[in-house]
């Protein structure tokens, strides 16, 4: 039996919680669903309650405050609920630890954040190689290090956050390998200056790493990772400003873990599933849902807030989340136009400022076409199904032009992650460099959004009590 509510918010990060609080403050019944045990999203991820000691104390105060405000509100929260289907109308299906649960709602707010992207290189699927975002999850929720000695590589602000997180947790950072040059970072100074608190934090991180003697290698990328006795050998190469590697191996590191990531992509599973309109925006994390100025998608009743609408960062997620919650309240008749207009004025300015910082960071995370073009032929691109670049290229030369056709011909994107990890890379390979992504398209969104344990979903039923449709004709 479905539970009925006014608004379901999928995702309990800053965008989702703020949207929920704003809508609930106008008297709407709001339910937040999240697969994590507590609110906070990835950015303010909380350690488990059972954990004491330093991890618990180190939880970000912004996240602590967010969780307190949520707990004090009328918002219904369902954690450890993995949403696996959203159907038009709306019906939201989730899998809870004790089985399936569903809701009907007048409006759905998608606040599912972002996901990791790695530009593949030989060896990236080996044990010991972990994503930058994945590393932050380990550090924040478990206080766990990826290894004793970790090399941190890739691009964007997560490089610094991860490297410092490792140091704080008592690990050793072998080096920070950045695809960008110092000039790339300097180019974003105007946006950085607009958020002095965050900029100061970044500068503090950098200073701390330098004090610890951590070398910074700019304009370098991982060329390959090999398993050797006692750990991983990471081969690095210099790259040009387009991300194209120069031929020779510039340096080798012997480490036991490599944390690597090439930015984030917007998490568009639900909007793709519901066939909402999307467009490609390389500077905001790839394919993003097309929204109006008030966060409405092309599907009436479906709203998107935070990084799921295009990367803009945690501060923008707060402001955009509140604005989205207010839009929902007005659209559902819980708020007058006048009250709405009164509420949004200053928020809009705040959102704009926050977004300019977030988009500057997103630019540093943007995929560089020459970097993708240089992926060696034998490299695995789809790690669920072990599909290599050579297989994708072969399908392309046989006439496959769209992401979905390559999926059918090669199984690329057919595995448990449903192409979340490889989707943007496959698109870039098919589009061959700078060409527009629109003709290539994206993997069609499919349920279940998370793999569903069959026993849990089927539950305990007697054969004779199954509800069966009429049989096929004789």
């Amino acid at each position: 039996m479905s539970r009925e509510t006014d608004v379901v918010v999928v995702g309990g990060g800053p965008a989702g919680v703020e949207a929920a609080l704003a809508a609930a403050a106008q008297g709407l019944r709001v339910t937040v669903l999240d697969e994590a045990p507590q609110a906070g999203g990835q950015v303010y991820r909380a350690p488990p309650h059972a954990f004491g000691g330093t991890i618990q104390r180190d939880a970000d105060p912004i996240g602590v405050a967010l969780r307190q405000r949520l707990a004090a509100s009328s918002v219904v929260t369902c954690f450890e609920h993995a949403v696996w289907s959203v159907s038009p109308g709306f019906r939201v299906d989730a899998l809870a630890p004790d089985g399936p649960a569903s809701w009907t709602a007048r409006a759905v707010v998608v606040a599912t954040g972002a996901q990791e992207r790695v530009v593949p290189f030989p060896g990236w699927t080996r044990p010991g190689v972990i994503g930058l975002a994945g590393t932050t999850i380990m550090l924040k929720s478990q206080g766990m290090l990826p290894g004793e000695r970790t090399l941190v590589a890739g691009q964007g602000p997560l490089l610094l956050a991860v490297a410092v997180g490792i140091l704080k947790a008592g690990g050793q950072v072998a080096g920070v390998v950045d695809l960008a040059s110092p000039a790339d970072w300097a180019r974003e100074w105007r946006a950085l200056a607009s958020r002095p608190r965050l900029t100061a934090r970044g500068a503090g991180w950098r200073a701390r790493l330098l004090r610890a003697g951590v070398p910074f290698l700019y304009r370098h990328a991982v060329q390959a990772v090999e398993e050797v006795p006692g750990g991983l050998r990471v081969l690095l190469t210099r790259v040009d400003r387009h991300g194209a590697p120069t031929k020779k191996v510039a340096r080798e590191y012997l480490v036991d873990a490599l944390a690597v990531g090439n930015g984030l992509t917007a998490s568009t599973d639900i909007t793709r599933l519901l066939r909402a309109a999307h467009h490609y925006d390389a500077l905001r994390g790839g394919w993003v849902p097309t929204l109006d100025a008030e966060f409405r998608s092309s599907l009436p009743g479906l709203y998107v807030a935070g990084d799921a609408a295009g990367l803009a960062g945690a501060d923008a997620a707060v402001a955009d989340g509140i604005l989205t919650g207010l839009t929902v309240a007005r659209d559902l008749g819980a708020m007058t136009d006048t009250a709405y207009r009164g509420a949004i004025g200053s928020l809009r300015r705040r959102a704009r400022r926050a977004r300019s910082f977030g988009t500057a960071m997103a630019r540093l995370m943007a995929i560089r076409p020459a970097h993708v073009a240089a992926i060696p032929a034998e490299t695995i691109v789809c790690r669920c199904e072990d599909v290599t670049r050579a297989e994708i290229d072969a399908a392309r030369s046989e006439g496959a032009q769209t992401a979905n056709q390559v999926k059918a011909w090669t199984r690329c994107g057919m595995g448990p992650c449903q192409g979340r990890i490889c989707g943007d890379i496959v698109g870039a390979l098919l589009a061959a460099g700078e060409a527009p992504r629109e003709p290539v398209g994206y993997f069609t969104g499919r349920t279940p959004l998370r793999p569903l344990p069959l026993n849990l979903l089927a539950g305990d039923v007697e054969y004779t009590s199954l509800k069966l449709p009429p049989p096929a004709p004789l």
Partner: protein
Amino acid sequence: MTPGLAQETVDVDVAVVGAGAMGATVALHLARGGMRTALVDRGEICREASGVNAGTLTLHMTRAALIPYAMKGRELWLTTERWLGMDVVARSAPGLSLAFTPAERDMLEKRAEARTAMGAPIRILTPAEACRIEPGLNASLLAAAFCELDGHVTAYLTGRAYRQALRAAGVAIIERMAVEQIDRLGQGYRVRGARQVVRARRVVLAGGVWLETMLAWLGLRVPVKCLINQLVVTERMRPVMRSVVGIASGLLSLKQFENGTVLIGGGWQGLGDPVRGGVQAVPENLIGNIQLARHAIPALGETRVVRIWLGLESETADAMPMIGALPGLDEAYVIGCVHSGYTSAPYMGRLLADRILGREPEMPLFDPTRLVQAAPNAVEEMT
């Protein structure tokens, strides 16, 4: 067609509209038979029903009258390397249809009897015999119908295989171009799309659930029903079954592929229509379908559902195919609405190609004339 817009015109002997397994097979054999052939699709080759169906090669659920065709089609799927040049990972496997209640056992016996009469080698087994063939079965079954001639095809590879063969045969493949209209010329047809115009002496409509729209272009009214079948695939798991398993009601089809994934089908319905395609899976229907699957093969409970998708199936008013020449038109043909159509497509397509090439088809076609309703505009013309 927008006046003044430069459009490329292609002149061919035959234009086939719809690049599913039916249309692609017709096009392939016509090209091999010496005709200049164009194959047009609004999407890509075999990316609708032909690429997303369950790939079951079964006689248990095939309409009795179509059994001889399905048996021929099955043989062709198992030998695609020979005539398409690529293995579509088609495998022969025993097929079992199960009964868990007395009512299902009755249904099972009736179905088996009707199909055996048409030449399908189906016999009824005891539970113990069935469990020897398929040790993974739920031993509480009452009876099973057994057929040696079952199997499965990896449907998503269909398009890749056909595309190579069509190219080698010299077919002009026009993908991602929706046909907007077909005009009748003095002799032949003009097939109009946004980018190209195909002028053809003959036209073959092979549009599956879109046949109703296509036939209307030629002034024929034939209602076509559209089913939205949900399909479910699990993640890779240990070998838990070796046969193709269904139940008497037809509400289940199960098979495990060599890669370890298990495909669960059975015609449970999702949301969609011919205009929008398959739109959304229905969660309750997923749950019902997997409950049935786990009941048949209990080990499936261990695995996880990875993906659900939708495939559109077409059906005529009498649930029998339309394959043959269209009434009142010169050299215009239709092929489609074949129950278990994927199984028999390679054969049905060849039969129609033979007819168009002036050869006597090996088995009778299915005259579409019986399905044509008086169109309102036809009445107007008469008055």
